[in-house]
């Protein structure tokens, strides 16, 4: 079928090229930072007070290299990396040796997905609804006030906003915890468990929802204002169609389309996590894991997370491209 030849195949080739370049970049860049994970480990061992004579250092370096899979030339390592990518097994983390990267992902990913995905969704929904309404009634005073407020909130850096929230809700009014989540490994899915998670996730989620929602709000408001000027909306308005219908079926429905793409892209960022917020609230997310991996030259970990991230985003975009016509009947693949 022509569709395959003219559209799908090139699109998939592009998809593969993007993945290839991304992974190659992620292979080389950390190796350029001058950090040697083996030496990092040796430095840590030394800081623990263990004295090593030069021969011991040598043999330890050999052992670590072998364990880490860092033997051989760069090219050999590169080949190994690809083998791992295909097997989706990224080997052990260097600094959490011998824990496999996949194990780490299993531990952290649920937390990030829980926080990031929910707060992204909530902020998306809230931002879009509020933005939609404010955009639709953009001449009303309250709409202008909300807009001005959001304009001021939006540029506040996440870190500052997080700390302010933390101080207000964690110290001034001690409503929410300020530290790590007290759930042990023997977790059972019960009321207490859920409440604990909610309590601990509330402030980080609040930060993400407000700051993220502000962005969605502004985008949506603009979109709605534009859609409102479209002929079909004006027509329905003059035609006496109920306001409710107009808002939902005409304005929001149409303004929503670009937001769906954006949401997919935003959700695809889940593997990058929300580092700053995770930091402020000591949240066990993948952003911190990754950042730590980056700062300590844990190649395998960085590789594992970014490969997954690249794969999910590219795949999400590919799927979105393929299925967008379902959302927007006007679009056809050319």
């Amino acid at each position, binding site marked *: 079928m*022509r569709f395959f030849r003219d559209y799908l195949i090139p699109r998939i080739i592009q998809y593969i090229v993007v993945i290839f370049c991304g992974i190659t970049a992620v292979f080389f860049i950390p190796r350029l930072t001058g950090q040697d994970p083996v030496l990092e480990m040796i430095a840590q061992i030394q800081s623990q007070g263990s004295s090593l004579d030069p021969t011991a250092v040598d043999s330890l370096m050999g052992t670590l290299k072998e364990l880490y899979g860092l033997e051989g030339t760069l090219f050999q390592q590169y080949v190994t990396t690809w083998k791992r990518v295909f097997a989706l097994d990224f080997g052990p983390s260097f600094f959490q040796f011998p824990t496999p990267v996949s194990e780490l992902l299993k531990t952290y990913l649920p937390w990030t997905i829980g926080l990031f995905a929910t707060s992204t969704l909530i902020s998306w929904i809230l931002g879009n609804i509020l933005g939609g309404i404010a955009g639709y009634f953009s001449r009303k005073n309250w709409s202008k006030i909300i807009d001005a407020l959001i304009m001021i909130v939006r540029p506040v850096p996440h870190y500052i906003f997080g700390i302010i929230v933390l101080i207000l809700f964690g110290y001034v009014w001690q409503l929410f915890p300020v530290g790590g989540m007290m759930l042990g490994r023997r977790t059972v899915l019960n009321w207490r468990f859920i409440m604990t998670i909610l309590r601990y996730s509330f402030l980080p989620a609040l930060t993400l929802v407000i700051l993220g929602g502000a962005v969605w709000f502004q985008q949506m408001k603009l979109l709605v204002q534009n859609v409102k000027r479209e002929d079909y909306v004006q027509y329905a308005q003059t035609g006496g169609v109920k306001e409710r219908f107009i808002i939902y079926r005409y304005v929001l429905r149409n303004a929503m389309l670009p937001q769906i793409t954006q949401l997919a892209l935003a959700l695809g960022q889940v593997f990058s996590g929300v580092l700053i917020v995770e930091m402020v609230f000591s949240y066990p997310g993948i952003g911190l894991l990754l950042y730590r991996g980056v700062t300590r030259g844990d190649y395998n970990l960085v590789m594992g997370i970014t490969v997954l991230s690249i794969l999910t985003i590219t795949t999400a975009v590919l799927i979105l491209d393929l299925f967008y016509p379902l959302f927007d009947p006007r679009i056809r*693949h050319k």
Partner: protein
Amino acid sequence: MSEILKARNLTKIYSLGGLFSRTKITAVDRISFSIQPAEIFTLAGESGCGKTTTARMILGFEYPTAGELLYEDQNLVELRDKKAWFKKVQAVFQNPFETFNPLRKVEDYFFETIQNFHLDKNERETEELIEEKLQAVGLSLCDIAGKYPGELSGGQLQRASIARSLLTNPSLLIADEPVSMVDASLRMSVVNLFRKMCDSFQVSVIYITHDLATAYYISDRIAIMFRGHIVETGPVDQVLENPKHPYTKLLIESIPQPDPQIPEKAAIQFLEEKEEYLRKGCKFSGRCPEVMEICKQQVPEDTSLDGTVVKCHLYQK
């Protein structure tokens, strides 16, 4: 007399498609025609019958899928140097308000054309040349000097557009529905211009329209297009006063006569464009009042008849 442009079996195929299905549309299907010097040749037909596609191919904006286009025996399809081509063939477009960039002054296009085609000798001559062409269309440089498209009326813009296209002294002017967006009160002045240009500058015009009345009014020869085919072609008087092809008849009937007394016509069936394009046999068979069995099977051949050429089974032996 030697033709300035000859189209032979000109064909353009587009492929359209959804997610899992693709269809090919032969937007222009093996059409042949030729243009004589200093004549007005009309391409008429309803929306989506391939008129613009033909024009774009002649202008070199679109490459024909098959067939050839000969300009003074030179195959346009093989021509690399677009600029040389544009010196000979120019165009006027449908929407006068879109012809010029809303953020640029109209006069800029004039100076640019002259500069790009190296028509100028010096500044004074440039202005004279522009003034000459503008005068010819009933404007003068001071009418458009310093003005943006938004500050001129549709008729003025369309006339300016014609004047611009004449700067290079082309031998062929393609006018794609040049008056359909121009106000009724100004329309005839533009239409008249084409005749005038044709006569005074010896430029041939391909006039594309679905308005047969103006076509009749100014053109020498006409070709009626339907879904990629030329179904009837010949001198304009013959074709329009004595139409042969049922589609031509339909077109003529459809013109709202500026005469309130005309009797009402029977309702017509209306089919979607793509459906007709994909039809086997004569594309018009779907709404032809005189449809025969063979029409649905076979594309009719061209038949010469009293100086016109018709593509219809009715006239085929």
